[in-house]
């Protein structure tokens, strides 16, 4: 009896979804479809349009979506395919090698702060059932669930507890792994029917591109409608601020990070951090370097810039000027150290030492940008209160 009614429900649902998709294809917004989207279970009427991110694509079909996770490596692009199939509908054929994910995903196993942020942004943080490591957690929803015992710690990418994850039957496991390198280690998990999706948002070259991965999360939980609106306002705010910042009359010179044992890692010119600096109207000496990660520099190569720079941002695992000088007395000779123009992105560090900059900051680039603009050009945003950044004393 129950089985029949369930089947009937899915039949009605798929007819409804088909109608919705059809009408949407003609460009006529349907109130019913929007309402169903808010309910959060039906196949989304609205599509996610990707404007900034390069790491994934979503194609929409009648009752399923095709997600491609791309790995741009020089000239060749590697692709992982995922079929996001609406619950209760048939899996389409003709996609060999694609992993199948039943949507809406009802339970998530995630690895990084970024994944938590994506879920939080889409309003589905309470669906997180497994997390790589509790030590880096900021989201109150997830922290409460951890306290209530609803979330399991499953270990980080290198050593995930396979048995634990498989026994949880999650709808998806989001990994931090690079799409091609090291993905083979998830074979056991995928063989056991747990879809594994690498989330290579850290390979994006712009803050908005990183944040746009929320749309992938939206596609997984059928919340395109809600997430698109929210992301649009993030994008709009970011663009307005970027115009303000990049038109600034002065370009204060900035150094980033902290050397370790004589090597200084500076964000490379094509990294999202360099983009933040460009949009904030900063003078950044390594803005033209190639690469999306960081450039390994000799302490000596950075010293001339550090000695005369105006600001020193993202100082690292330190909380005061005293600690910086304790790391290496030479750092006290840097101009930003002397003038006190030292800002660290650690204001939102909570009682367990997790820094929300890496979590909510990743999906709220407009707030991070506002912080940096306020630091470098206080006259442009005089009333802004720093959210993620704080001045080190």
């Amino acid at each position, binding site marked *: 009896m129950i089985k029949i009614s369930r089947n009937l429900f899915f039949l009605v649902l798929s007819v409804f979804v088909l109608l919705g998709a059809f009408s949407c294809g003609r460009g006529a917004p349907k109130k019913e479809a929007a309402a169903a989207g808010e309910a959060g279970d039906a196949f989304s009427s609205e599509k996610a349009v990707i404007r900034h991110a390069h790491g994934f694509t979503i194609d929409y079909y009648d009752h399923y979506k095709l997600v491609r996770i791309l790995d741009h490596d020089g000239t060749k692009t590697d692709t992982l395919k995922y079929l996001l199939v609406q619950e209760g509908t048939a899996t389409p054929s003709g996609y060999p090698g694609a992993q199948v994910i039943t949507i809406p995903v009802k339970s998530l196993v995630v690895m990084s702060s970024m994944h938590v942020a994506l879920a939080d942004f889409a309003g589905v943080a309470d669906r997180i059932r497994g997390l790589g490591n509790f030590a880096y957690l900021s989201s109150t929803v997830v922290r409460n669930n951890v306290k209530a015992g609803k979330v399991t710690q499953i270990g980080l990418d290198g050593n995930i507890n396979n048995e634990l994850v498989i026994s949880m039957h999650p709808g998806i496991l989001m990994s931090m792994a690079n799409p091609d390198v090291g993905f083979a280690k998830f074979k056991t998990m995928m063989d056991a029917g747990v879809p594994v999706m690498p989330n290579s948002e850290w390979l994006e070259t712009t803050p908005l591109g990183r944040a746009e991965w929320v749309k992938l999360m939206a596609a997984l939980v059928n919340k395109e409608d809600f997430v698109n609106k929210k992301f649009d306002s993030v994008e709009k705010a970011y663009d307005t601020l970027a115009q303000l910042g990049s038109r600034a009359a002065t370009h204060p010179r900035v150094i980033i990070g902290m050397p370790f*044992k004589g*090597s200084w890692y500076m964000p490379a010119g094509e990294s999202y951090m360099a983009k933040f600096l460009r949009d904030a109207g900063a003078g950044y000496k390594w803005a033209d370097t190639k690469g999306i990660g960081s450039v390994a*520099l000799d302490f000596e190569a950075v010293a001339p810039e550090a000695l005369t720079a105006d600001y020193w941002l993202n100082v690292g695992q330190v909380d005061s000027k*005293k600690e910086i000088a*304790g*790391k290496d*007395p030479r750092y006290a000779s840097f101009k930003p150290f002397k003038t006190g123009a030292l800002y660290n992105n650690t204001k939102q560090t909570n009682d367990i030492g997790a820094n929300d900059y890496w979590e909510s900051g990743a999906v709220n680039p407009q707030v991070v940008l506002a912080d940096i603009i306020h630091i470098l050009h206080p006259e442009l945003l005089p009333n802004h209160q720093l959210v993620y950044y704080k001045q080190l004393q």
Partner: protein
Amino acid sequence: MEGTLKKGRIIGLLLLLLLAFLLDISIGSIKIPLGEVFRILFSFHSENSTWQFIVEKIRFPKACTAVLAGFGLSVGGLQMQTLFRNPLADPAVLGVTSGANLGVASIMLAGGGSASLYAIKELGFSGSWLITCAACAGAGGVMLLVLALSSRLNSNVMMLIIGIMIGSITLSVISIWQYLSDPDLVKEYLLWNFGSLGGVTGSQLVILSLVVAAGLIIAFLSSKKLDALLLGENYARSMGLTPKKARIIIICSTSLLAGGITAFCGPIGFVGIAVPHITRSLFNTSSHRILIPACCLVGSVLMLLCDTAAQLPGFQTVLPINIITALIGAPLVIWIILHKNNLRNFG
């Protein structure tokens, strides 16, 4: 005749050391005119304060550290090769360097939980001192263990095996920590593992010099014992030497040298193996009164040249010193083995 030849070589090496030191100081990723470098070195003053900072605060301490590391590691290696009468021995065979490794790993990886790091910070240690102290503690701990074991053993070969086993145990403990740690922390630990001469400045440099000086003085004072040991423990005994006592003194010296340098610079491989071989082939002697100072000179020249090579003039990046020493050291040893059959001292 032979004596003057050796004297000549020592003087030659001294000049080479001076040249290598100046070369190391004048080359770097920032171009500074040679004249300006000398002016800064000798008058401590330059019109360009950036250049002054680079030469005075970056290049000079780094070159000094290279010299100290060259002194310590090569003499440590020489002592171990003699003590164990094994051409493959280096300062690391005692497990002391892995002990230093373990100390660092305990701070960086196991202590990775910010809570424990916080607790240690509260004790008053912070920054680079924390890592250095941890490395010293690790090296010291292993050294005490090795000493305790060595006083119970009669044979140096057994000592060698035990040293290697202790090293293996500490490394596997580190591997477990690495396996269980956050990738960021592991990366930092790996960076430490590449070795670096650039992180030692100011008071750290003073302490490193004191430690190396102490180790070298002990080594020099025990050069007669080393000469005797080279001929075998039985021979040494017949010369009125107590092998056990000699062993303890030599282990103390090597531990100070290797542990101290590893604590401040991270592990630096190959210098300890390569330099004694190079020196022996240069001087053709087995007398430690000559070999020890000669090793110091050859070792420091090699370290300075490695450091210069690591800087890749024109590039903004510096290669980790530990990579360069092996890249340069290994072919050198192969060349020596092919050209001079100099391993005969190890019958």
